[in-house]
């Protein structure tokens, strides 16, 4: 590879700082464009030019001081000017290597490699950015090294390094038309449509009122459309494939991501069936992969959010994916909640349910949408039995299974007190056994 120094040290792609700047880069370009286009006038726009120059210099410095190498069984990354920081990531702990290409990165033909580390730290090592053509070979090489470090290389040593991997099986690619239809009748979609219709109606009635609403609720309006856009952008032509490492997920409209989900990383799985989707037999499947800590560079967008495995699809397809993600899950639900739970949760009552195997618990609830959550018991963090005033009157109680992160809520809602107590004791014991076995 290029930019090689001594001792196997390598630099990232020189354009990395620009791509990493992301939106800031675009903003600067937009601000500076008039100056540059106008030619002269340097005296007038001097401050901006100086600022841009400083930023470019800083970017250059950050590029020149950052280097990485593969040394022994470690990936070593060094960065920093005054406070030099050298981080070693043991390749044996690599859980997955994701290839991410944001919009700007695609423009400059570079890609980012994200190494998700397992173990206690749960950190993420980022190589941002490398040349697009080098990303895939490097990705394969890192995974191979990781496998060798873990001592799983026995079978691969005989065959050639490339050929040994069994071909992946593509399970589904979500057609864009289906995705659009699904988003249009999903909760966020309907909300955005209602906002839009409301604005149009207000405008027809009185344009001044519409302006007032626009300026007053701009934040809300923009955010509701942003949610819809983000969903579309991330889930566009999402392809799910089954490979030897787990589920491969690729897709995106502007930013392309390729991610491998190993079953061992799954903290919880959530199947959501919004009200209108249920009539059509559609559902979406989301996975919580929350690590213990999120890397600083991972960005707000990725923090504490679920990874969509299936943006929209049939229940049968979801079952197939679930077989990979939580293979030992319970197949059937236990008896429904006691009838008196109707008084406490009238909307939720028809959906309430739970079941368990020795290693996995599943709960189902939801008011309008039906949400089913699976939690592998060895990933459960803590358990809580909660009883509110109404529940006490009806002698009901809920048991919460707390998972890492804050996205998935698995709750055995409104069970008979005795059943809840028994479930709490059983789940606690099973979780302990599962943790030991892990």
């Amino acid at each position: 590879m290029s930019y090689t120094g001594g001792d196997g040290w390598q630099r990232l792609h020189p354009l990395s700082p620009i791509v990493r700047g992301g939106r800031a880069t675009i903003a600067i370009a937009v601000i500076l464009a008039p100056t540059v286009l106008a030619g002269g006038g340097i005296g007038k726009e001097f401050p901006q030019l100086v600022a841009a120059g400083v930023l470019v210099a800083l970017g250059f410095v950050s590029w020149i001081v950052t280097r990485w190498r593969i040394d022994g069984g470690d990936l070593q990354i060094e960065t920093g000017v005054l406070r030099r920081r050298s981080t070693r990531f043991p390749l044996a702990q690599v859980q997955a290597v994701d290839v991410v290409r944001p919009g700007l990165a695609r423009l400059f033909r570079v890609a980012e490699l994200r190494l998700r580390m397992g173990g206690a730290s749960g950190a993420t090592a980022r190589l941002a950015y490398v040349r697009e053509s080098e990303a895939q070979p490097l990705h394969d090489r890192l995974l191979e090294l990781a496998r060798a470090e873990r001592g799983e290389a026995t079978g691969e040593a005989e065959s050639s390094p490339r050929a040994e991997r069994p071909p992946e099986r593509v399970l589904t690619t979500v057609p864009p038309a289906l995705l659009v239809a699904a988003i249009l009748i999903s909760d966020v979609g309907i909300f955005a449509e209602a906002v839009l219709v409301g604005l149009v109606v207000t405008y027809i009635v009185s344009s001044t009122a519409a302006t007032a609403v626009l300026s007053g609720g701009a934040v809300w309006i923009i955010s509701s459309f942003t949610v819809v856009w983000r969903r579309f952008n991330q889930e566009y032509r999402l392809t799910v494939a089954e490979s030897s490492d787990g589920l491969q997920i690729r897709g995106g409209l502007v930013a392309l991501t390729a991610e491998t989900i190993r079953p061992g990383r799954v903290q919880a799985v959530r199947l959501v069936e919004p009200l209108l989707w249920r009539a059509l037999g559609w559902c979406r499947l989301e996975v919580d992969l929350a690590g213990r800590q999120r890397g600083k560079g991972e960005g707000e967008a990725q923090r504490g959010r679920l990874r969509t495995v299936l943006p929209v699809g049939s229940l049968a397809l979801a079952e197939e994916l679930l077989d990979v993600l939580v293979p030992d899950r319970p197949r059937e639900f236990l008896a429904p909640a006691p009838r008196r739970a109707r008084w406490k949760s009238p909307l939720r009552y028809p959906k309430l349910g739970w079941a368990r195997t020795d290693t996995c618990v599943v709960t189902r609830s939801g008011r309008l949408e039906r949400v089913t959550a699976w939690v592998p018991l060895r990933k459960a963090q803590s358990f809580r039995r909660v009883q509110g005033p109404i529940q006490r009157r009806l002698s009901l109680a809920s048991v919460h299974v707390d998972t890492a992160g804050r996205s998935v809520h698995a709750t055995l809602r409104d069970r008979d007190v005795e059943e809840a107590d028994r479930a709490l004791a059983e789940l606690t014991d099973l979780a302990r056994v599962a943790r030991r076995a892990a």
Partner: protein
Amino acid sequence: METPPEETWKRPARALLRLRRLEVLGLAIVAAVGVAVAGGLVFVPVAVVLGVIAERFVRRRFHSWGYAERADDLLVRRGVMFSRLSVIPYGRMQFIDVTAGPLDRLFGLATVKMHTAAAASDARIPGLERAEAERLRDRLAQLGEAQAAGL
């Protein structure tokens, strides 16, 4: 749930109840003076009644707190209106905080808070005597290290 027998449950120190009562008293006095100045003396009995109700609430809340150290996990119970029983495995505790505000320090108290990777776990035990809080913290940290499980 096979909860441990009642005598093995530990409770916050009595001083916590004294502290909470003092807080209620302080608030009640401020409220009483406030309404007396603003609306006349007729409202003072209202403030007194509210103060009595608050005292009752504070007392029941105090008595609801309890924790028990079992072989593999810590049980914490609390709450009057919403009664909660949390089971936190030692191996899941990432770190443990001991905090003491100015009023707590005046009464020689501290709060122990357990953090797991789950945001919802929210397990804390307020009003422990300083020595007990530090003992609990050290013991939990030790047990947590011994039983630590990866994510």
